[in-house]
């Protein structure tokens, strides 16, 4: 129960941060990536503020604690391979972000303050995730 409440609290802070920052506003996001047109450098401050805060916070946590407050261990990604799958996936994500102006973290809180076009994007995105999983499972099915 305490883990649900702490996740809810973190989610509330995250959602407010996205809404205040403009990261959930496609017009603002697209303008950040348009230095030759209607450039709006705001998002550099969003990413800078988020990164520096997390960098300092993570340092403090990992330097002092051997486990988080409400769990027995830190759940950190064990994968560290840099391969075509990572680069290709990230490249594709950027293309979709550039077409729509939405990234997953921007769209989720935007569901709260702009439900309509955001729902369209999120449904399509979940469809894309399921499509990718289906594609990833194909070779194994063939062998079996």
């Amino acid at each position: 129960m305490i883990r649900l409440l702490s996740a809810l609290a973190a989610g509330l802070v995250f959602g407010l941060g996205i809404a205040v920052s403009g990261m959930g506003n496609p017009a603002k996001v697209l303008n950040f990536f348009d230095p030759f047109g209607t450039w709006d450098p705001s998002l550099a401050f969003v990413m800078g503020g988020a990164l520096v805060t997390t960098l300092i916070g993570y340092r403090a946590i990992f330097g002092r604690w051997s486990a988080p407050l409400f769990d027995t261990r830190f759940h950190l990604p064990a994968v560290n391979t840099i391969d075509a799958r990572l680069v290709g996936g990230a490249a594709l994500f950027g293309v979709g972000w550039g077409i729509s102006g939405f990234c997953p973290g921007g769209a989720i809180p935007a569901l709260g303050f702009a439900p309509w076009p955001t729902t369209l994007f999120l449904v399509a995105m979940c469809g894309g995730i399921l499509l990718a999983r289906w594609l990833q499972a194909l070779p194994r099915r063939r062998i079996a």
Partner: protein
Amino acid sequence: MTEFTPWAALFGGILIGLAAVMLMAFNGRIAGMTAMLDGVLEPKSPDAPWRLAFLTGAILAPLAAMGFGAEFAFDAPVTGAALALGGVIVGVGVSYGSGCTSGHGVCGLARLSPRSAVATATFMATTFATVTVLRHVIGG
């Protein structure tokens, strides 16, 4: 045009970072939204409940702030077809790339992960290239 809003952007960014630090300090988890969506897409997973709790908070916070009179600018200057197509491509991309702006760009970079650094540099570059082509080559 959108207005340059450095202070709101910085404050919002700090809140996003604070949320990532909270989730790590409390539950030992990375605040990556691609994985967070599994709370909806894989409801039987043992991680689904806390992920759903996080997602609920993320959607409720702006709504609650609006209840207190806050206003958030929103404009999607693209067609519905672009939102749908972009959505599918984002979904496929974050699946193969194992993360998005929050997971790689904030949490991964903060852990000094080379993998996340490569992913972030890649998607920032292709987003810039896509916007430039759509606005100045095709639409220019």
